[in-house]
């Protein structure tokens, strides 16, 4: 006896209905700032909210077609670790500066995605970080947080 799992399409439909509700809520909040019902900052949020609820309702009655298999094991780990490392990178760059955080992020990504040796990964990570430094900081003059570099 398996547990009946709600279909992904239905989850999508419910999310659409919730977003629609949220949009209508925002339209009601903005209504006093507008000139009248159809010309103001509330008009589009209101219309989009109603349409989202209708389209979500439409999807609720659509038949589910394909089964989706999500990745497992090492593949899932690689995907989660890659995204996790990007989030950590975007948080750490403020504290340890562009160069070290970028080398570390590259090293981690090359190691988990490519599974290369440490020496090779360190060399490639340093070369790529330098190349991106030249491109983004020297050429494009992007003001990244920096400590030593």
């Amino acid at each position: 006896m398996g547990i009946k799992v709600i279909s992904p399409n239905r989850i999508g439909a419910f999310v659409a209905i919730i977003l629609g509700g949220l949009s209508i809520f925002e339209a009601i909040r903005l209504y006093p700032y507008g000139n009248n019902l159809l010309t103001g900052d509330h008009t589009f949020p209101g219309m989009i909210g109603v349409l989202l609820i209708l389209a979500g309702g439409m999807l609720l009655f659509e038949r589910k077609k394909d089964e989706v298999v999500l990745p497992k094991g090492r593949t899932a780990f690689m995907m989660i670790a890659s995204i996790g490392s990007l989030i950590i990178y975007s948080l750490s760059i403020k504290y340890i500066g562009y160069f070290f955080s970028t080398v570390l992020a590259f090293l981690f990504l090359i190691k988990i995605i490519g599974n290369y040796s440490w020496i090779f990964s360190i060399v490639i990570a340093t070369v790529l970080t330098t190349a991106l430094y030249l491109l983004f900081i020297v050429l494009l003059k992007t003001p990244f947080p920096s400590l030593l570099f």
Partner: protein
Amino acid sequence: MESILYLLQGFSEVLTPFNLLIVLLGSLLGTVVGVLPGLGPTSAIAILLPMTTILDPTQGIMMMAGIYYGSMYGGSTTAILMNIPGESSSVPTTLDGYPLAKMGKGGAALGVAAIGSFLAGIIGLIGLVLFAPILADQALKFGPPEYFTLMLIALLILFNLTGYSLAKSIIMGLFGFLISLVGIGISSGSPRFHFGFDALLGGFEMISIIIGLFAITEVLKGLEENRVRIKHEKIKNVYPDKKDMKKSMFPILRGSLLGFFLGILPGVSATITSFLSYDVEKKISKTPEQFGKGAIEGVAGPESANNATSSGGFIPLLALGIPASPPLAILLAALMIYGLTPGPVLFEQNSQMVWTVIASMFIGNIILLILNLPLIGLWAKLTEVPFGILGPIILMVSILGAYSVRNSMFDVVVAIIFGIFGYFFHKYQWPIIPFVLCLVLGPKMESSFIQSLEISSGNWLIFFQRPISLTLLLLAAVLIIVSIFLTNRTKKRIKQETGEHMEF
């Protein structure tokens, strides 16, 4: 005649060493990214857009255009040599391109694809020079109601075009609108959808979202598919022989004309025209049994149709400010980033820039043809870059690119979140094309709608009472029927050839 004079003036602007370098660099960069397996024109433009911001608007747009058609060309390399179409419009190219590569004629197939792309590109550009100014001139008569109607029609047709469920397309389009509304409201100046977060006051940066949806998602898809170094077929001679050229000439011409004339209609994508061209060639061929086994006409026709449709897409983009496909939507976003207003006013206010960019496209196509034939071997080598190196490069360039647009870490987080969203959208077949187009067109549609209702004192009938608006609506009814027929046909063909559903 006036157009020709403007174009010649445009040529005189482009033919300076620095501008030529920009066009060359754009075409080469586009080809490099397009050649990488799985990355198509949309990802190429999204990844490389932040790097063009250092240039002045004209040079930036010239480079973006170069990246666009360079990546279109690059996509055919992986389709022919590795049986991997970068975008669904390259699927027909794989049908005969890959068998030709296995027969040792991959070089000839790439050569024919390059020549076909060049001729189709030039035909498309001639059409652009002839039709865009006329359309822009007519579009000057458009007021907000006509613009709103036009954008609404374009979106409705495109919703049908995605190849997935209509309800999902509509939800994704509305979600795109919703995201575009975040920030300061256009009428009262009060913040919308910020929920107390200051970071949301400035709205979402669309480039970050696009980078997430196309570049980061692509890496996640690559990780899931366990992309490793894929062997490609060896290349011998890159120049097609006389026999191949003779066989390809008419398919190239037919594909170009079909691709261009159908492609300027909203709702007819490059995927539709390339499949149509493939089927036309097969039908009129004296040896239809050769198709699917390595018929050079099966490469020449669809590749030309694909490129002609893409060039044709510049007409509504430049003349009306309406993109027909995701890469053109990003180009539209790029124009906005450079402070330009796409549409008829662009031809009036920035005439010199528009004609310089159009002239640069002619030169870019010539550069691509000259460089690509001798460099085919190098492009093929690039396809061997292991995913273990390529994946991290795409991820890091995406993150740094997202940051560099507004120097904001919030945009980086947005790119990462939309990268995750994009993966699940792909997995559960939620089309991203309506999302991107509504995201880009959202603010413009909202302002046209509100202005229209202000003109009419809140009367909805304004969209039906004005002659141009009414004509557009009637035309739309016909176009939607044509679009539904062609879309269903293409859906079946994709399923037939690849065994799966694809967004197109």
